């Protein structure tokens, strides 16, 4: 069949481009995951804080507003917004296109991770906290030694889904030609005037990537569960 033979030709000729795209996708995905896990967790803890005067709780409000706005607008819009906003509002930072897109991805997924972490902490039985507090542990000690270790197990599966979503969402960054897999498709499409063949190759790479990722995380989950048997 012509489709497969063209696919084979496209692959043999442009494999270096696909591999470079794969590398960029992984690089961007990993950075986004790492950064948004850190900031998302911090925001989730901040959101729990009751710091404020009476009903006026500014930290809670700001974090909640941020999460709601990010979740309520399309990621493509956010990408555009940061891509144009950062260089024009903060020109002295001299950010590259890649940096702008990366920041947009991080801002987006931090909001989702924040929600995941919050839900994970909330799912830990309140009795665990009460028992720890009744022994004289303060709030911070209770979080560190009792709540967070148990919350991690609630958080991990949802975080895994978010990671896979991030890997796929990096494809939207191709709007700005930053070199990840989807950009490579556009490049090869421009050279060969072929659509389906390079698109299928990119699809297979995405699928293998997320499939392997989900299997790895399932393995990690099993390990974590086994430790308490």
């Amino acid at each position: 069949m012509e489709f497969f033979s063209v696919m084979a030709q496209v692959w043999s000729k442009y494999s270096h481009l696909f591999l470079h795209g794969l590398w960029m996708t992984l690089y961007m995905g990993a950075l986004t995951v790492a950064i948004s896990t850190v900031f998302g967790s911090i925001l989730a803890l901040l959101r729990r804080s009751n710091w404020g005067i009476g009903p006026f709780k500014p930290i809670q409000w700001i974090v909640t507003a941020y999460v709601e706005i990010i979740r309520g607008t399309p990621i493509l819009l956010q990408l555009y917004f940061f891509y144009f906003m950062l260089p024009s509002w903060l020109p002295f930072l001299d950010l590259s296109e890649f940096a702008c897109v990366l920041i947009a991805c991080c801002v987006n997924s931090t909001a989702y991770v924040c929600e995941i972490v919050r839900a994970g902490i909330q799912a830990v039985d309140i009795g665990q906290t009460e028992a720890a507090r009744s022994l004289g542990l303060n709030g911070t000690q209770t979080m560190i030694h009792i709540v967070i270790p148990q919350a991690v197990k609630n958080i991990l599966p949802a975080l895994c889904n978010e990671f896979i979503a991030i890997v796929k969402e990096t494809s939207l960054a191709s709007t700005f030609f930053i070199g990840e897999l989807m950009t490579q498709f556009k490049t090869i499409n421009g050279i060969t005037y072929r659509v389906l063949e390079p698109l299928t190759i990119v699809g297979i790479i995405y699928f293998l990537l997320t499939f392997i990722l989900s299997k790895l995380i399932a393995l990690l989950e099993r390990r974590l569960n086994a430790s308490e048997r």
Partner: protein
Amino acid sequence: MQVNANGNEIIRVEDLHKSFGSLHVLKGVTEHISKGEVVSVIGPSGGGKSTFLRCLNLLEVPNSGHIYFEGTDITAKGVDINIHRQKMGMVFQHFNVFNNLTVGKNITLAPTLLKKKTQAEADEMCKELLNRVGLYDKIDQYPKKLSGGQKQRLAIVRALAMEPEVMLFDEPTSALDPEMVGEVLYVIKDLVKTGMTTVIVTHEMGFAKEVSDRVFFMDGGIIAEKGTPDEVFNHPQNPRTQEFLSKVLY
């Protein structure tokens, strides 16, 4: 073992009120508990028993009133409740053993973290405590593997590891399978014999009658009747107490 009320007072509660939203649960409880005294709190569900107990170590913060523990008003502003909680052990209906820690770690975490003991001292005490409740062979297991009765015994010695002055029991046998009630009550009885000041919210009337120095009958957010087990169980004066006891088999 009747203790003089004015003597070794360890807990004093004055006009305690607690509401959850529009639900007024405690409507002015005034009471004192002496050192070494064993007090059982009985009464119908929703009468405020558990809320009263949970107020004693401020797991519930009362809306008004005062709680004095060893002479200190722990409801006052600026009091570090964590210090006082170290001296008040609590055992919960649903055990609340730490699921992420081994049996041994459940016991040693608080004493070592709060600098009451070195790790070696804590380990030594942990061994002793687990032997006392027959759980030493479980020391390296996680609570998931324990039965309800074992979890509750662990929860009791976890509290004892802080060497508290008072032990608070919040319906310690209500969530247990019937055949496990005995083993937990046995441990509590053993503890009471050592002279530990104990407040126990319970539906085990026979047990309350046997171990208590005094019994509080709580209903409608107040202590409706109190006295020695003989007074409350055998000669109740309040019609509500009479009605409650007539409905309860023991």
